[in-house]
């Protein structure tokens, strides 16, 4: 087993990883920026090193200081969490160069999955259904030909993309040129990589993803799916659940099977998530996240498996020790993200000093948070303050439980998404389980209109 892990992250996920280390009897070393000196992950870890000032490039992306902290504190591994350096293949290589085990898949897999076009090609080779589309399109002319063959409406996407940057919907041939040039320019500006590719636009899809775990000895299991279709207009997830409601057993089985197939094909190891778009009974591979996800707790609740502990065990070289047959989901889990955001103002992020903070508890409620009464919310980072997770035997009970939990939640000092989550949970659409990624944007548009 690994002896001591540097946690190269902050906030709730850093705390989450420290907790897993503790429960495994492994040492933990936190890093923090000057803005996070009082944060919970710093208080709770065995040791903590300041790695730079508040702004992310100077602290949480300060690779030399992070690696140096790991070395001087005698760590033998680094857990990157999500965001920051989690999907940076070069960072994974640097860890290896310094004799530090990067807790995640091999660098070449991070690299391959980080390039969306490559990822899609690899998955198609593995027999995974992908959205009809193309490889990199060098010119408008090639894009025009491709669009005719794929069939309008199409989506232009940056290969280095994320967060909707460098993405354009093209409904008609006459809009193609402008969209192509716009997407290329935006991708160039955002990622210093202007290459774009094309996909068939799936209308009103659901975002369904499959959690996988793979050890370093070739054993691969899936831990079912999550529905993450409740997304802000920026495509950031707000509410997730496991399992996905109103999914046919056929589609569900196919998703699980494809996820395992894909991991075996690429020789994947550690935790990962395959994201799919689903429409009716059709599913299309979208991308693979080669790290732990924000929404991993809903899977943990229904499978009774601690995914972060499993990540560490796998990185230690241990075999999974169970097979797919040993895994059986039980009950239903929902996660609501409590973000420091003003939902009335386009989810504008909030910062400042918090007043009273009281989280709910009681049966079936799990709280993952780094904040507390009087804590500071620095302006530099992701706005997520907490995850409230509700678990119950049925989806209906989990919704009722989440509603009562959110009504108890008190976070003073900043605007939060608590009320927005409650509003979603109260809709007929959410309660029936029939919703897609356009659900929240439509709800918001109705409120304005």
């Amino acid at each position, binding site marked *: 087993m690994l002896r001591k892990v540097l946690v190269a992250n902050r906030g709730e996920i850093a705390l989450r990883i420290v907790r897993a280390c503790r429960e495994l009897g492994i040492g933990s070393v936190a890093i923090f920026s*000057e803005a996070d*000196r*009082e944060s919970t992950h*710093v*208080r709770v870890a065995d040791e*903590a*090193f*300041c*790695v*730079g*000032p508040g702004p992310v490039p100077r*602290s949480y992306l300060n690779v*030399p*200081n*992070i*690696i*140096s*902290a790991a*070395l*001087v*504190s005698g760590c033998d591994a680094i857990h990157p969490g999500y965001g920051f350096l989690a999907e940076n293949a070069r960072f994974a290589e640097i860890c290896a160069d*310094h004799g530090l085990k990067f807790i995640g898949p091999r660098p070449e897999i991070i690299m391959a999955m980080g390039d969306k076009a490559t990822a899609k090609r690899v998955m198609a080779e593995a027999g995974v259904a992908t959205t009809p589309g193309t490889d990199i399109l060098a010119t408008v002319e090639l894009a025009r030909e491709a669009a005719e063959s794929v069939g309008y409406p199409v989506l232009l996407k940056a290969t280095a993309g994320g967060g909707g940057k460098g993405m354009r919907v093209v409904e008609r041939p006459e809009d193609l040129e402008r969209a192509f040039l716009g997407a290329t320019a935006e991708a160039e500006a955002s990622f210093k990589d202007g290459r774009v590719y094309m996909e068939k636009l799936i209308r009103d899809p659901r975002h369904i993803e499959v959690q996988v775990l793979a050890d370093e000895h070739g054993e691969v299991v899936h831990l079912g799916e999550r529905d993450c279709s409740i997304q802000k207009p920026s495509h950031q997830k707000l509410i997730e659940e496991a399992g996905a409601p109103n999914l046919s057993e056929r589609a569900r089985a196919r998703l699980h099977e494809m996820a395992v197939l894909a991991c075996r094909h690429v020789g994947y190891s550690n935790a990962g998530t395959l994201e799919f778009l689903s429409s009716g009974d059709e599913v299309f591979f979208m991308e693979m996240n080669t790290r732990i996800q924000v929404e991993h707790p809903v899977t943990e609740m229904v499978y009774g498996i601690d995914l972060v502990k499993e990540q560490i065990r796998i990185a230690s070289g241990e075999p999974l020790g169970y097979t797919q047959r040993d895994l059986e989901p039980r009950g239903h889990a929902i996660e609501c993200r409590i973000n420091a955001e003003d939902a009335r103002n386009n989810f504008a992020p909030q910062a400042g000093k918090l007043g009273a903070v009281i989280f709910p508890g009681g049966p079936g409620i799990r709280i993952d948070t780094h904040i*507390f009464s*009087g804590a500071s919310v620095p302006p530099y980072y992701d706005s997520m303050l907490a995850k409230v997770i509700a678990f119950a035997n049925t989806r209906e009970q989990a919704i009722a439980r989440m509603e009562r939990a959110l009504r108890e939640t008190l976070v003073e000092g900043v605007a939060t998404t608590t009320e927005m989550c409650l509003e979603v949970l109260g809709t007929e659409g959410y309660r029936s389980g029939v919703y897609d990624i356009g659900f929240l944007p439509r709800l918001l548009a109705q409120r304005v209109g």
Partner: protein
Amino acid sequence: MTPEHPSEDEPSARAQRLAEFFVNTPLLRMRIEREDEEFELARSSLAPVGRTSEAAAVAEPSAKRAVDILRADVVGILRFGRSEPTLGEEVAEERELAAIEALGIRTSVRARSAGRLTAILCQDGAAVDYGRALFEIERG
């Protein structure tokens, strides 16, 4: 209890004096027992981790005197050079007082101005993190 004005000899007044003393110590907890009374003072464990008391101790004089605090700006192992810095010695501007080794690279810690070395806040061979106060120099 009789509602009188607290005199210097009353427990509340003594507690206040003790508290004032305590906050200026680096102690986390202090317990005093006498025949007829007990005082226990504890610092909130929510106080900023690490170098708080040290930072406060070195920050205050700088307001009155012309003092430079030299801090680590990389994470690594601190090494004093061949000529180990001595408390009270006069240092020249740009004098290397120590270096921080990290990933095989050596980053010098140099005096920003000439003056007297009034505090050595670090030990040879110690792991230091970003912003850690290392030396205090009173500018000459």
